[in-house]
């Protein structure tokens, strides 16, 4: 049933602390695609990711993974099917980077691949091989973010080797990273998608979304206001309406979109 091969929110309603945060959201990410979820602060992006990851139960509607309700699967089964990188992941113990990444590799015990190999490959994918023996709780912000991404990638690969590993959910993986590291992280996400995983990535940076995503969904006040290919969705009028501030979209000679707040009008009105 190839039709069911996707991670999908279907007419999903969700409340947090009594307040509705998602109101009938429909989104889907298929294997091999990278979906960027964008929108202003408080639009419900992280809640959507949490519902699809199985952290939060929808009030009505459903979060489905390959056709099965996420809420009906246990932690073990979900860990085989998808890997999740939280926003600002933490670590309370003085683990080494290797031990940290190993936690991901061990998340799918039925994986036939040697965990040590998964760890090495994942560290390599994020450019952290030289840090394996370092203490993960004493890394810089960028190094820590990449170490956690390596952990999640190791889990994804382990799941893949065990017949799962279909989806990767990333919640603002580029936050607090410098430009070069933002690109490293997004390349890793892109290559996971190219390798056959469905990647859902919550992003604030619309330029990164435009550059790396196959599809973009724009969220506003718990609703999907636009979804589709980046060039169709990321337009100046749509973004200006969404962010309630003037936003300019230019196309570079190379074809890439360049999105930025349009600062000129404000200057003019102040004069």
């Amino acid at each position, binding site marked *: 049933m190839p039709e069911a091969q996707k991670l999908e929110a279907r007419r999903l309603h969700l409340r947090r602390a009594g307040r509705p945060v998602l109101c009938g959201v429909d989104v889907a990410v298929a294997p091999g695609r990278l979906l960027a979820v964008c929108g202003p602060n408080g639009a419900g992006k992280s809640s959507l990711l949490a519902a699809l*990851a*199985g*952290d939060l139960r929808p009030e009505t509607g459903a979060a489905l993974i390959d056709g099965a309700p996420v809420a009906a699967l*246990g*932690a*073990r089964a*979900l*860990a*085989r099917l998808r*890997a*999740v990188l*939280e926003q600002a*992941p*933490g*670590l*309370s*113990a*003085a*683990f*080494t980077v*290797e*031990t940290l990444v190993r*936690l*991901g590799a*061990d*998340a*799918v015990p039925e994986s036939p691949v040697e965990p040590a190999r998964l760890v090495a490959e994942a560290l390599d994918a994020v450019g952290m091989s*030289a840090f394996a*023996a*370092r*203490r993960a709780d*004493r890394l*810089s912000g960028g190094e820590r973010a990449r170490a956690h991404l390596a952990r999640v990638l190791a*889990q994804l690969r382990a799941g893949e080797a065990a017949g799962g590993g279909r989806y990767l959910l990333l919640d603002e993986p580029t936050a607090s990273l410098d430009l070069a590291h933002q690109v490293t992280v997004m390349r890793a996400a892109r290559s996971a998608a190219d390798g056959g995983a469905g990647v859902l990535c919550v992003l604030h940076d619309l330029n990164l979304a435009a550059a790396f995503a196959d599809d973009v969904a724009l969220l506003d006040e718990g609703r999907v206001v636009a979804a589709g290919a980046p060039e169709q969705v990321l337009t100046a009028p749509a973004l200006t309406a969404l962010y309630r501030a003037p936003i300019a979209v230019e196309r570079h000679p190379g074809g890439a979109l360049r999105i930025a707040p349009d600062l000129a009008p404000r200057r003019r009105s102040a004069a």
Partner: protein
Amino acid sequence: MTAAADPSTLAHAAPNRGAGLLGLLGLSVALLAVAGLALGPVTLSPAAVLAALAGQGEPMAEAIVLHIRAPRVLLGLGVGAGLALAGMALQGVLRNPLADPGLIGVSAGAALGAVGVIVLGGWFMGGVPAPLRPWIMPAAAFGGASLVTAFVFGLARRGGAVSVPTLILAGVAVNAIAGAGVGAMIYVSDDQQLRDLTFWSMGSLGAAAWAPATLAAVCIAAAGVGLARMARALDLFQLGERAAFHAGLDVERAKRRVALGAALAVGAGTAVAGPIGFVGLVAPHLARLVVGPAHRLALPAAALLGAGLLLAADLGVRLAVPPAEPPIGLATSLIGGPFFLWLLLARMERGDA
């Protein structure tokens, strides 16, 4: 802190080195156990101890070695390992290295259960079948410890990781509530029960005879086996409960199992030996220093260190002022209290307390 040459940022122990360290710790505990059999206020020659162990010694030497010292060593091993495992497991789930069964009130909960049996036991013991009676006090202590553990884990559920101030405040509150319960028991106790309570509450391995020591050791071994299998779960808890779930951990079930194991280990030990403080704090810390923070090695290391610490402390109180014997709880608190303060100050200086 980015230079790879800074040794403090490097790994603590390679895996095979870890196994060697565990072996070394095991050997030390074995030596302390032998010392516990060989040394005491009564001076016995090594030959006399060996003969007693072989069942061919003088009757009095046999009585001392086999019926006084041996159950005491068993109880020390069990209580020390149990407190250390419980401390490590609680620290792991709460993501807080200051979570000691004594500080957060688990021991106080167990104490309240045990004190209730000491004072009120006269009323209902008659209705309990004789073979079950020795189990009543450990069961009550387990019940009290379980209640407190459930409460503290409830705090963790609300806020994710439990901050140090929250944990200490919760501990103060729980200890105060349990203290009030003990106070109520004191109010209804007679003069003799009162004195019993006072001495019991200082903790001692002196009540060790084969029956209670075996009972405690069996409960603690069961809890220890359960907790030892939680190494991966405890590692995952260090990522936070949400990430632990993402990595395949049934978080609620793991918490229930840790709570059950910790309460059983603390409850059984407290019922027989009274509340003994700080072993559950000091042993896990030393374990992490020796073999690193990964629980696969740190759990067994903590169990060995806890057992070793308590055996050493017990040897200390037995040999300090013979023929009298200061309560071991005083000895562990004397070492553990300053250690705790040092830890707290060090963390505050680093700004993560």
